[in-house]
C-alpha cells in the first residue's frame, strides 16, 4: 500500500514538474520570431510572455479547477449524463443572451446560459416525475432538443445583417484564444466558489455523495448540497463554453475525473488528481491547437484537442494504474503463472527424490522429463527458473539437478500443502481418494501458512496422505539436512 501511495505521489509530482519545466528553462525568445521546432513553440507558449497566451493559460487553469473538482463529484455520483445534458442545454441560452445585447457580452450570455441550463434540468426532473420515462431517456431527449434549438437560433443570428457575430461558432467547439478579461474573471470567480464550497463542506459532501439516505437520516441537508453542486456545475459549464465549446464540455468534465477514479481509492486524492489532469489537459490541448494553427494557417478549435489530451491521460491510466491497470493485472497474472511453474517443478524433483527414498541428492534431468512426458528442453527451461531463484543447481553439463536447502524446504511445503488438502477432502468432504488430486493441484499454491496449520490441527497432525505417502511435517518445511528425510522415510517403512 505504501508503494502504491508513493507511486501516486510520484505521478502527481511528475506531471507537475513536466508542466513547470518550460518556465525554468525559458530562453530569451522574442514572440515575433518564427519558431520552427515544436520545442521552441512549447517554450514560447508556456513562458507566459505573450499576453494573449497568458489569457489562455490562466483560463485553462481556472477551468481545470472547476472541472476537476466538480467532475469528481459528477463521476462518483454517477451523474455523467447529467453533466453532458447541462452542457448542451445551455446553448439556446447563449444564443438568446447574444441576441439581447447583439454582442458577445459575457454577462448577458452567462445569465441566458444559466437560465437555460436550469430550465433544462428542471424539465428533466419534471418529465421523470410525471411520466413513466426514466432518467436516461429524459436526459437524452432534453439534451438533443435544447441543443437543436441553440443551433437553430445561432444559425439565424449568423444570417442577420450588420451584426458583429464573429466567433459565435466558438461556442460549439471552443476557442481558448477568444477568451476575454471578463471571461477570465467569471472563470476565476467560479473556481473560487468551487474551492470554497468543497473546502468548507467536504465532510457532508462526501457523506451525501456516498449514501444519500444515511446522510439525510443524520440530518444533513442532502437536497441543498445537491442543488449547490448542480448550481456550481451549471456555472462552471457556462463559463467554460467559450474555451471548450458545448460539444466538448462533458469530455473535460468527465474524462479527468474518470482517470483519477482509476488511480486512487480516496475521494480527496481523486479531487486533487482530477484537478491536475484537467489543468494539464486543458493547457496541452490549447498548446496543440496553437501548434496546429501554425501548420495549417487557420484557427483550430481548442475543445477537441483538450478532450483528446484528457483521453490520452485516461489511456495511460487504463494501462498503468496500480489498481486496475491493464499492465499490472497482466504482470500479476504472469508472475502467478511463473510461481505455479516453479512450484510444480520443485514438486516433481521432490517426488523423484522420494521415489528413491532420499538416498541420492541429484536427480537426472532425463528422468524428470520422461516423468513429465515432455522434451528435455522443456524440462531444462523449467529447471532454469529454479536455478534463477536459487532453489536448485544444475551439474554435469545440466544433466543432473540438485535442490538447494531453500529449494528442498520450498518443495516440502508445496508437497505438504498438496497432501494435507487431499486428506482433508477425503476425510472431511467425503471425496473419493482418486478424485482429490486435481483440486489439490490448484489449492497447494494458494494455501496460506496459517490455513495449513489450521488444516493440520483439524486433521490431528496426520502423517500419511490418502495414497499412503508421507506428508512432510512442519519441521521438514524448515531447514533440514537431507539425511534426516532419508531417515524418516526408512522409519516409515
Amino acid at each position, binding site marked *: *500500500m505504501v508503494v502504491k501511495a508513493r507511486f501516486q505521489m510520484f505521478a502527481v509530482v511528475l506531471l507537475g514538474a513536466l508542466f513547470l519545466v518550460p518556465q525554468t528553462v525559458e530562453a530569451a525568445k522574442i514572440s515575433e520570431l518564427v519558431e520552427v521546432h515544436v520545442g521552441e513553440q512549447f517554450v514560447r507558449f508556456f513562458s507566459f510572455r505573450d499576453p494573449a497566451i497568458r489569457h489562455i493559460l490562466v483560463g485553462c487553469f481556472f477551468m481545470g479547477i472547476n472541472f476537476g473538482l466538480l467532475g469528481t463529484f459528477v463521476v462518483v455520483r454517477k451523474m455523467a449524463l447529467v453533466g453532458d445534458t447541462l452542457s448542451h442545454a445551455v446553448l439556446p441560452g447563449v444564443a438568446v443572451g447574444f441576441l439581447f445585447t447583439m454582442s458577445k457580452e459575457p454577462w448577458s450570455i452567462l445569465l441566458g446560459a444559466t437560465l437555460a441550463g436550469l430550465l433544462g434540468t428542471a424539465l428533466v426532473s419534471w418529465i421523470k416525475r410525471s411520466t413513466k420515462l426514466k432518467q436516461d431517456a429524459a436526459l437524452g431527449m432534453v439534451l438533443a432538443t435544447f441543443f437543436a434549438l441553440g443551433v437553430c437560433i445561432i444559425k439565424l443570428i449568423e444570417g442577420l445583417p450588420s451584426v458583429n457575430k464573429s466567433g459565435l461558432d466558438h461556442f460549439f467547439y471552443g476557442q481558448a484564444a477568444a477568451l476575454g478579461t471578463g471571461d477570465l474573471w467569471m472563470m476565476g470567480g467560479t473556481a473560487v466558489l468551487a474551492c470554497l464550497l468543497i473546502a468548507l463542506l467536504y*465532510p457532508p459532501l*462526501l457523506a451525501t455523495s*456516498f449514501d444519500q*439516505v*444515511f446522510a439525510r437520516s*443524520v*440530518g444533513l441537508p442532502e437536497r441543498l448540497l445537491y442543488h449547490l453542486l448542480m448550481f456550481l456545475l451549471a456555472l462552471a459549464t457556462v463559463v467554460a463554453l467559450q474555451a471548450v465549446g458545448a460539444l466538448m464540455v462533458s469530455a473535460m468534465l468527465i474524462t479527468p475525473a474518470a482517470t483519477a477514479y482509476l488511480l486512487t481509492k*480516496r*475521494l480527496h486524492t481523486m479531487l486533487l488528481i482530477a484537478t491536475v489532469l484537467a489543468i494539464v489537459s486543458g493547457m496541452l490541448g490549447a498548446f496543440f491547437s496553437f501548434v496546429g494553427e501554425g501548420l495549417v494557417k487557420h484557427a483550430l478549435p481548442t475543445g477537441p484537442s483538450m478532450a483528446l489530451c484528457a483521453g490520452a491521460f485516461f489511456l495511460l491510466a487504463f494501462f498503468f494504474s496500480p489498481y486496475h491497470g491493464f499492465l499490472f493485472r497482466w504482470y500479476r497474472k504472469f508472475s502467478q503463472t511463473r510461481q505455479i511453474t516453479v512450484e510444480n517443478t520443485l514438486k516433481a524433483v521432490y517426488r523423484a527424490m522420494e521415489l528413491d527414498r532420499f538416498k541420492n541428492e541429484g536427480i537426472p534431468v532425463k528422468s524428470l522429463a520422461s516423468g513429465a512426458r515432455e522434451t528435455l528442453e522443456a524440462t531444462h527451461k523449467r529447471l532454469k527458473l529454479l536455478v534463477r531463484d536459487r532453489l536448485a543447481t544444475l551439474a554435469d553439463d545440466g544433466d543432473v539437478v540438485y535442490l538447494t536447502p531453500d529449494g528442498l524446504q520450498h518443495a516440502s511445503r508445496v508437497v505438504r500443502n498438496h497432501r494435507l488438502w487431499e486428506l482433508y477432502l477425503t476425510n472431511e468432504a467425503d471425496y473419493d481418494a482418486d478424485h482429490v488430486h486435481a483440486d489439490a493441484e490448484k489449492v497447494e499454491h494458494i494455501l496460506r501458512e496459517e490455513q495449513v496449520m489450521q488444516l493440520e490441527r483439524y486433521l490431528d497432525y496426520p502423517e500419511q496422505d490418502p495414497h499412503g505417502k508421507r506428508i512432510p511435517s512442519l519441521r521438514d518445511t524448515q531447514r533440514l539436512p537431507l539425511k534426516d528425510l532419508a531417515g524418516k522415510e526408512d522409519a516409515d517403512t
Partner: protein
Amino acid sequence: MNVTARSQDSTDIVLETHDLTVAYDKKPVLYGIDVAVTPGQLVGIMGPNGAGKSTLIKAIMGLLDPASGWIQIFGEPNTTQRKRVSYVPQRREVDWDFPVTVMDVVLMGRYGHLGLFRRPGKRDREIAMEALEKVNMIPYAGRQISNLSGGQQQRVFLARALAQEADLYLMDEPFVGVDAATESTIIQLLHDLRSNGKTILVVHHDLPTARNYFDSLLLLNMRMIAFGPVDEVFREDLLQRAYGGRLTILSEVAEEVGEKSKVDVSASS
C-alpha cells in the same frame, strides 16, 4: 404537571407511533400503526414482502413523511431527535466502489454530531476505532470498501451506526447475505447494545431464526397484525394472518388511491 408528564414519557417509551399512515409514491403502504416500544428491547419487525417493514423504519427516521398520524421518539417529534437515533440501511443501497476507506465510512457516523462545517477530530476517530473494534474490523480500517465481502460490508455499516452513539437503533435487514461469523458478531452486538439499555428495531426476513434472536416481534402486513413478546406473538394463527392471505381488499384500494392521486397530479399541472 406538563413537565412531569413529559419526563415520565421520555423514560418509559422510547418510540411511539399513533395512527401512523405512510404512503410511498402516493400509494399507502402502512395503515394506522400504533406502536409503543419500551427501552432495552430487541424488536424484530417481520412480515411478507411489501408489508411495509422498510417503510415503517424510514418513516420513523423521518426519511418519509407520514400521510397522517404522528411519531414520537423519547416523547418528542421524531425529526428533532436525529442525534439519538441511528439507522442501518440495506447494504445494497450504496455503491461499494465509491472511493472511500472503511474508516471514512465509519467516521460518517459522527457527521450528525459535527454539523455542516466541523471536521471529525481526534475524539471522533477514537469513537470510530472503538466501533470498528466491536465488529472486529480494525485490520480493515484502511481498506477501500470495494475489497470487502458482504459480511464485512454489513459490519462497516454497523460500525458506522455504533459511532453515532445513539439510544435507538433501526436496522434494515442486517442479516441478509452475511456469513456465519458476521451473523454471530451481529447477534453479540445486538445483545451488548440491549444490555447497555439501548433499544433496537430490526427488520428481519427469516422466520425460523426470529424466535431466538428477538425479545419482541412486530408482525406487519400493511396493518399491524401483532406486537408483543416473542412467545405471545410467534403463534400459528398470528403468523398465518401476517403471511397467509394478504389483506386483498386493502391493497387493491391502496393501488387505486395511488392511481387516482397520480391522475390528479397530471390533471392539476
